[in-house]
C-alpha cells in the first residue's frame, strides 16, 4: 500500500477524530473552569428555567436573534446549518445504519443530494458576502475565508462524486464502519473520496482551535442562558474582594458644620 494512503487511511483519521473530541472537551472544560461573577443576562430575559429553555431552543432551531437583526444573513446561515445537519445525519445513516434507508425510503437518500446543492449555494453566498460587503470584509481574517473554502471543497467533492457516481458508496461505507469500530480495512483507493476524506479530517482538527467551537460555546453564553432573577436570588462571585469606603463617621467629621445645620446629627425629620 502507498505509504500516503496508509497514513490518511489508517493514522490521521484517528488523530482527527480524537483531536475533535478531546479538543472540544478541553475547550468546554476551560470555559467552565472560569467563574461567572455576575448574573447579567440581556433583558428581556426569562425568570424561569422553562423560559430559558424556550429562549435557547428558539436560538437553536430558529436563530432568533439573527433573524431580528439580518434577514438575508439569516437565510444564508439557516440554509447552511440545516443542510449541514442533514448531511451529518445522512453520513451517520450511511455508515452506521445503512438499512435505515429502506425504512425511510430511498427517495430520501436521493433527496439528500439536493440538500448538498443548497449547502453549496449557502456557502457560496456566505463567501461572496464576506468579500463583497465592505463591513464584513473589514472584520474578516484569512482564517474566516479559509474555513469557508475548506467547507466548500468538502461539500463540492461530496456532491460531485456522488452525483456522477465516481465512488462506490458501499465500499466507502464499509471502510468508514471499519474505522469507527477500530478494526480498519484498507481504504477505497479512490482519489475523489480520499481528498474529500482528508479535507474532512483537516476540518475536524481545526474545529476545537477556532471559532467553529461556537457549535458548543453558544450554550454557555451567559447573556442568553441565565435567568433574570438577580434581585430575587443572590448570585455569588467567587473572586469578590472587600473594598474600603469613607465611613459615616469620617464623612460626618468632614462635613460636621454643614450636617449639624441640617439638624442634630445631620438629621432632619
Amino acid at each position, binding site marked *: 500500500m502507498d505509504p500516503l494512503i496508509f497514513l490518511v487511511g489508517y493514522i490521521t483519521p484517528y488523530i482527527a477524530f480524537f483531536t475533535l473530541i478531546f479538543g472540544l472537551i478541553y475547550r468546554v472544560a476551560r470555559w467552565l473552569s472560569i467563574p461567572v461573577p455576575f448574573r447579567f443576562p440581556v433583558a428581556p430575559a426569562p425568570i424561569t428555567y422553562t423560559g430559558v429553555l424556550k429562549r435557547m431552543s428558539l436560538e437553536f432551531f430558529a436563530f432568533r436573534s439573527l433573524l431580528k437583526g439580518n434577514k438575508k444573513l439569516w437565510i444564508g446561515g439557516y440554509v447552511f446549518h440545516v443542510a449541514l445537519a442533514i448531511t451529518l445525519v445522512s453520513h451517520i445513516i450511511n455508515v452506521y445504519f445503512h438499512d435505515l434507508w429502506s425504512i425511510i425510503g430511498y427517495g430520501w437518500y436521493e433527496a439528500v443530494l439536493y440538500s448538498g446543492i443548497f449547502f453549496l449555494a449557502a456557502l457560496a453566498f456566505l463567501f461572496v458576502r464576506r468579500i463583497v460587503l465592505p463591513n464584513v470584509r473589514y472584520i*474578516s481574517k*484569512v482564517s474566516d475565508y479559509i474555513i469557508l473554502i475548506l467547507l466548500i471543497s468538502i461539500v463540492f467533492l461530496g456532491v460531485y462524486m456522488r452525483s456522477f457516481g465516481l465512488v462506490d458508496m458501499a465500499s466507502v461505507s464499509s471502510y468508514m464502519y471499519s474505522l469507527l469500530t477500530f478494526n480498519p480495512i484498507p481504504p477505497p483507493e479512490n482519489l475523489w473520496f480520499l481528498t474529500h476524506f482528508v479535507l474532512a479530517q483537516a476540518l475536524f482538527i481545526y474545529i476545537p482551535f477556532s471559532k467553529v467551537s461556537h457549535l458548543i460555546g453558544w450554550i454557555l453564553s*451567559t447573556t442568553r442562558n441565565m435567568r433574570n432573577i438577580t434581585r430575587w436570588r443572590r*448570585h455569588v*462571585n467567587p473572586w*469578590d474582594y472587600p473594598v474600603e469606603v469613607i465611613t459615616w463617621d469620617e464623612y460626618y467629621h468632614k*462635613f460636621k458644620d454643614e450636617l449639624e445645620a441640617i439638624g442634630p446629627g*445631620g438629621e432632619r425629620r
Partner: protein
Amino acid sequence: MKIDRSLPARKYKLYATWKRDMETMKLPFPREWSHTNFNLPPNWKEIALKKMDEVVNKFRSVKLFLDICVKCGACTDKCPFFLGTLDPNNMPVARQDLFRSVYKRYFTLTGKIFRGFVGAEELTEETVELWYTYFYQCSQCRRCSVFCPYGIDTAEIMIAAREVLTAIGLSPRSLTEAIAKCETIGNHMGIPPAALLSAIQFAEEEIKEETGIDIKVPINKKGAEILYVPPSADFFGGPHWGTLKGALKMFHQIGLDYTISTYASEGGNFGTWLGYEHMKKINRKLVEEAKRLGVKWILGGECGHMWRVIHAFMDTMNGPLDFLEEPVSPITGTKFEHAASTKMVHICEFTADLIKHQKLKLNPDANNQYIVTYHDSCNPARVMGLIEEPRYILKNVCRNYVELDPNVNREKTICCCAGGGLLADETIELRLKAVRPKIEAIKRAGANFLACICAIDKAAFTEYFEHYKLPITVGGVHELVGNALVFD
C-alpha cells in the same frame, strides 16, 4: 453597509484623568498625561498582558465571547456609534477585535503560531491608543448583543478591557472626576450636605407655590421605613428637577415614611464604567447607609446605569443584605417578591403598583399640553427588562402618548449615546452623530415631551434638542406623575 476606512472617529478621545484624582482614587501610575500623550509607565506592556490574562480568567463570558465570535457581521450595523460615524472600528465586532486580536496573539495556540492569519496582533503603543479611543466610544448599551446569534455582549468585553486600560494608568476624566467626588463628598455632582439641603428647601418652596401644600423632606432620618436614593443630578436642577419634585409630591400624597441621605446621595455609579473596585465602592455606601439608618428597604430613583448596578451587581458585590426586609409597599401591601434578595425597588415599579391599586389621585389632563413619548434607556430595557412599567405609568398620567419606531424602541432601543463615560463636552460632536436615528424617530413620532428614566438621558437629550433646535421638552416619568397629582 458603507464604511469609512479613514477612521473618522479616531479623533474623538476623552480627556485624561487629573493627577490629583488618580491620587485620591489610588489609581495606578498617578502622573501628568493627556489624551494625546499617554506617558505610559515603562513596563506597561507587561502589566497590560498580565491584567488581560487576569480578566479573561475572571469572566467566563469574556473568554467565551472572545473565542466563539464567527465574524458573521450581524452586529456591524447595530451600533449607533458606527451608524453615526461609519468608522469601521465602531462596529461592535471590530471594537471587540481590537482586544481579541491581542488576546489571540498572547493567549491562544493558533494565534501564537499563525499570527495575522487568524487575526492575532502584537500589542503596541498604537494598539493602546486605539483601545483608549474606541473602548471609550462604547456606551455599553448592549444593543449589539440583542442581534448577536450567540448573545456576544460588547459591554462585558469593554468592562474587562477598561480594567486593563486602568491598570496601565489610562482612564478618562469624564468618569474619574465624578467618581472621586462621589467617594469623598458623597455624590458625582460634588454636592456637599449644605447645598443638598438648600436644593431640598428650594424644591419644597416651589411645590408650595405650585400646589399650596407644605411638605418637609426628611434627610438622614434614622428609623425611616424607606431610604430613597435618586441619582444626584436630581438635586441639581435642569431637566432632572421635575423628577425630584414629582417624586417628593407623590411621597407626600401617599404619606410615605421615607428619608433621603446626604452620605448616600448618589444612586448613580460611574465606577461601573471604570472597573469592579470603584463600582463596588460607590454602591457600598448605599448599603452602609441603609444599615446605619435602620430602614426596611431602599427605593431607587430614575437612573439608568445605577439600575444596572442595583439590578445585576449590587447583591453579588455587597450582599447579602440580610439586615433589610423584603420590600413591601406600605400603601398597597404589595410584596415586591422579585426584589426579595436585593431589597431595592425601582420607583417605576413602586408607582405602577400605586396606580394599579388606585392609590394616587391623578388628573391626566394636567399634561394635556404634551404629546409624550418614552425613550427606553439602555440599562432599564436591556439589563432589567423594565419596559412595561414606565409605559403603564405614562398612559395613566397623560392623555397623549405615542410610541417610537419599533426599530429603535423597547429592547432594540438606541440609547442616548452618553453613557459609559461619554457624557463629556469633548464627545458632543460624536454623540450628536450617533444619536441621530433616535432623534429622527422622536421627530417622526411627533412628540413634544420625551419622558425617560435616566439622569444621563435627561442631560444628554436636552443638549441634543438644543443643538437640533427641536421644541421638545425632556423630563422624567415622575415629572409627569407630579404634574398629574391632585391635591385638595
